[in-house]
């Protein structure tokens, strides 16, 4: 069990996709203009990274080291495309909300990164837990970034959450500022994304430093170049 606790801790905090590994920054910056958008992208990615870890882990004995990267890319791209088509056909209402995010997941380094650094070396169960933990960590990060930008930018939180999650979630939609709050346009625009992510990464490092943890500043990855 200790192994799983480490995996979950890694995914949620220590090695958090956005604030620790700094992977998947393209979708992070692009879709987090509201907390709801962040949640949608996070949940769609959570499903894909978990399924990709499962497939890669199950197939890891058949994939030789030399051709593993193209094989992983092929697995991930095929899976996402099939999911995209199936959702368009049978879950059309959800597709209209999430459809925009799904093709973006193929190019999210998080998915390839976990396949390469975890699922290809570990058995099925830990790989699935890793996918779930990383996915939940990513979702939380996107909701926090989106929430920060939304509150400062427009004064709302979880605007239009009922469109994503259904009418039962209307209670999430909040207006946190007086009606005449002019908003801060810059936080909604792309520069605001960089500002929010930068501030939050700094915050995480301060917390880690206070806790006496060694801060790893060498976040590097094979696919940073690709992003």
């Amino acid at each position, binding site marked *: 069990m200790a192994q799983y606790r480490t995996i979950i801790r890694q995914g949620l905090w220590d090695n958090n996709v956005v604030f620790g590994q700094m992977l998947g920054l393209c979708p992070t910056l692009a879709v987090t*203009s*509201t907390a709801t*958008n962040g949640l949608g992208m996070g949940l769609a990615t959570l499903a894909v990274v978990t399924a990709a870890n499962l497939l890669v882990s199950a197939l890891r004995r*058949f*994939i*030789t080291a*030399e*051709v593993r990267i*193209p*094989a992983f890319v*092929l*697995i991930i*791209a*095929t899976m996402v*495309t*099939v999911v995209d*088509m*199936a959702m*368009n*056909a*049978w879950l*059309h209402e959800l597709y*209209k909300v999430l459809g925009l995010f799904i093709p973006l997941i193929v190019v999210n380094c998080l998915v390839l990164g976990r396949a390469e650094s975890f699922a290809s070396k570990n058995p099925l169960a830990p790989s699935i837990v890793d996918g779930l933990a990383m996915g939940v960590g990513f979702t939380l990060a996107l909701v926090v970034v989106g929430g920060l930008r*939304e509150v400062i*930018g*427009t004064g*709302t939180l979880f*605007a*239009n959450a009922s*469109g994503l999650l259904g009418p039962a979630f209307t209670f999430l939609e909040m207006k946190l500022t007086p009606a005449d709050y*002019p*908003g801060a*346009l810059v936080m*909604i*625009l792309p520069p605001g994304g960089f500002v929010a992510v930068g501030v939050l990464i700094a915050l995480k490092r301060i917390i880690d430093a206070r806790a006496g943890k060694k801060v790893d500043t060498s976040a590097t990855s094979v696919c940073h170049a690709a992003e």
Partner: protein
Amino acid sequence: MNARDTLIHAVVLGGFSLAAAGLLASGNMFTAEEIRLRAIEDLQASLTQVIPATIHDNNPVADAASVEGRKVYRALKAGKVTGVAFESSANGYAGEIRVILGVDVEGRILGVRVVKHAETPGLGDKIEVAKSDWITRFTGLFLGDPPEDKWAVKKDGGPFDQFAGATITPRATVNAIRDGLKFFAAHKTEMLEVR
């Protein structure tokens, strides 16, 4: 790396590629028809918003024609054309804003809806009817009310509201609607012709 290793890699990667191709092909086969039906349903849903049910007894989706490369959907009642719906577009803040426009035979707007846009969430997306009733303001207007050169947002001297922090989006939407009305005025006879 010797020849045998190379062969193994080729077989592994080839196998994966074949399996992926097979999956994609069968996925496409199973979903293509469903996806086509969903697209028609979406179109039908937006058409019912811009052409009131009271003015037609046909199915406008089935009664489509092409005028100057634009799809035109016709509302017929007792065999007579009572209105048409067609798309128009203009460039907004973040790419194309596409609207569907329903007009009666005189060119008066029956309804407008934005069908596709990529404007800033929280600012420009107030052109969606789900976010604000701004777009319903156009119902009943035509080229002449306001006059063509007055089809503009308030900032440009027209009667239409812009949004706080976003002028480009409503300006583009107004342009798309005005261009749609001009298109109708220019091709009225072909668009209203019963085939």
